[in-house]
């Protein structure tokens, strides 16, 4: 990065944050601090919901998933449109009618205080941990590649988001997210255009898809019924539906985004905006990764994308073995490139036999390429177990730094930071609100002025920000970053969703039955997660179904007298 890139990075991030703080100055009552001015339109809500969900991990790691595994991850989002429709039609009108600040407040209305606390507690635990990952994930990749200090990267980006979230509240979060997502889309589109322009002459877009398809990178939809497969149409439609229903419908970091809408109509349209654009956005990001894969078949990539890990070990003990593997990798890649050029010529000449032969040769060479890369990873991890297990997270940033012009590098790095800040801000805002409304105001101090609760909310938001920064500073994550976040969510989300579905649809179930049913369901999910090798998306379904089933059984055992106090009266 040169001074132009740094100017774009620092100027954009500080400029957006300063504008948000200035625009939202003077918000002193609890309602406007936690729910905004009440004038937010659908586009701002839609972009804010999208920005909260799509963190830096989405933009940094997902192209790497496309590069390594192809388009299959898009199935994860197949259930999202249906979930968003259910939320817009059922959840949202009830939240707005009861004028709640948090989703868990509704559980208090419908059941009892302990169930409200359970919902809020599950959210605080899983989102508190997730917030650490949100800040750690981009910092580890960017600091490694850029040569920045990891702790400085985490602290600087963390403190900036804490500053404007604490000072500006809900409206500052929505406002910054709107501009940040603009920067993100501009950056991703620019990367896509440059990538298309840099593909070899004569290689059309359909050639690229055919080439990627030959290496199983265009398998977007998998109808397999094998439960071991992580992404199939069934896990996406069912597990993805439950994950999205839980995340968008009951996670306060999302609920807070659309509760700030000027009306029910604006909030609904904001959700429908996401229902329409969620699948194409993820497809586009994965396709970017697939095209980077095609690009690197003709342009030699590094044997290991986490170059600093390779450089360090090459200079400290494993150098001989690593260089031998690199030589093997380079030789195999050169052979593969030659075979692919032959394939392209045969394809354009319409010579099916030559095309098939060249493709077979390229596939064999590609196996050698992948074997050398996998062995390099093993050597690096054996030398230093702290080396990130998944090299895919470094694919996109390596492409950006090696092949994009200055200015665009700055724009893309700004986009990653903007994505990190936008999702982080949504999480902190929600963590602060839930701690204030569901814990502090509900248990610790019931009667106090608005100014007192606003001050408390600011302190709690800052505290959660510091917890997230501390967690990020001491975290040592091993698996692919985006999957780590999704897995963490899936362990808790199913049960939380079960609580809400019982509240909305099973009117006869009371607080005591649902409370113990939820605890039993969470214990079951923990036990199954440690014992079964199934896709993590299924835990959303299992947790939710178990919570509902246990609640029904317990209610039958307890009898009608075990109903929660507000059960009959609630929606």
């Amino acid at each position: 990065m040169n001074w132009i890139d740094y100017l774009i990075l620092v100027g954009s991030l500080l400029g957006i944050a300063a504008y948000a703080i200035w625009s939202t100055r003077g918000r002193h009552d609890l309602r406007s601090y936690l729910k905004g001015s009440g004038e937010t339109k659908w586009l701002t809500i839609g972009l804010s919901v999208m920005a909260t969900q799509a963190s830096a991990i989405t933009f940094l790691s997902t192209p790497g998933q496309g590069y390594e595994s192809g388009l299959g991850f898009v199935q994860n989002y197949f259930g999202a449109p249906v979930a968003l429709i259910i939320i817009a039609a059922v959840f949202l009108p009830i939240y707005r009618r009861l004028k709640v600040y948090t989703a868990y407040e509704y559980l208090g209305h419908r059941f009892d205080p302990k169930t409200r606390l359970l919902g809020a507690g599950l959210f605080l635990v899983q989102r508190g941990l997730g917030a650490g990952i949100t800040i750690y994930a981009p910092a580890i990749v960017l600091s490694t590649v850029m040569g920045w200090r990891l702790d400085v990267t985490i602290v600087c980006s963390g403190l900036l988001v804490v500053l404007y979230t604490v000072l500006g509240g809900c409206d500052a979060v929505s406002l910054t997210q709107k501009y940040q997502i603009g920067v993100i889309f501009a950056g991703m589109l620019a990367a896509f255009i440059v990538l298309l322009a840099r593909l070899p002459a004569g290689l059309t877009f359909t050639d690229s898809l055919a080439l990627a398809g030959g290496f199983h990178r265009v398998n977007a939809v998998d109808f397999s019924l094998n439960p071991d497969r992580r992404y199939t149409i069934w896990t996406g439609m069912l597990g993805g539906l439950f994950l999205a229903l839980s995340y968008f419908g009951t996670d306060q970091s999302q609920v807070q985004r659309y509760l700030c809408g000027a009306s029910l109509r604006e909030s609904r349209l904001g959700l429908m905006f996401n229902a329409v654009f969620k699948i194409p956005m993820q497809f586009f990001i994965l396709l970017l990764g697939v095209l980077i894969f095609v690009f690197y078949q003709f342009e030699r990539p590094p044997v290991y994308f986490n170059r600093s890990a390779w450089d360090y070990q090459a200079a400290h003990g494993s150098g001989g073995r690593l260089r031998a593997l690199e030589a093997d990798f380079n030789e195999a890649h050169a052979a593969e490139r030659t075979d692919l050029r032959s394939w392209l010529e045969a394809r354009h000449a319409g010579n099916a036999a030559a095309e098939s032969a060249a493709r077979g040769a390229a596939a064999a060479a590609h196996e050698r390429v992948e074997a050398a890369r996998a062995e390099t990873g093993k050597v690096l991890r054996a030398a230093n177990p702290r080396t990130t297990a998944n090299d895919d997270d470094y694919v996109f940033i390596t492409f950006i730094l090696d092949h994009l012009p200055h200015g665009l590098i700055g724009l893309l790095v700004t986009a990653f930071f903007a994505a990190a800040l936008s999702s982080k801000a949504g999480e902190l805002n929600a963590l602060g609100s839930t701690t204030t409304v569901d814990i502090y105001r509900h248990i610790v101090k019931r009667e106090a002025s608005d100014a007192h609760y606003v001050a408390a909310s600011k302190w709690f938001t800052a505290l959660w920000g510091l917890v997230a920064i501390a967690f990020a500073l001491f975290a040592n994550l091993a698996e692919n970053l985006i999957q780590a976040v999704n897995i963490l969510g899936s362990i808790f989300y199913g049960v939380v969703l079960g609580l809400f579905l019982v509240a909305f649809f099973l009117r006869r179930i009371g607080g005591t039955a649902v409370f113990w049913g939820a605890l039993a369901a969470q214990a079951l999910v923990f036990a199954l997660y440690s014992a079964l090798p199934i896709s993590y998306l299924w835990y959303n379904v299992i947790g939710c179904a178990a919570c509902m089933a246990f609640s029904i059984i317990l209610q039958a055992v307890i009898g009608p007298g075990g109903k929660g106090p507000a059960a009959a009266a609630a929606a």
Partner: protein
Amino acid sequence: MKEPPDDKETGLPGLRSWGRVYWVVLGIMAAWIVLLTALTRLYS
């Protein structure tokens, strides 16, 4: 549950009820799944 009058109108041309909006969104989702399935079949 009754909705306020201004919330019944979607404000979208040609889509006057929320039910229609939801069906259109479902249609777009189905179209994407069909498109991605076709892409998979075509290039695998």
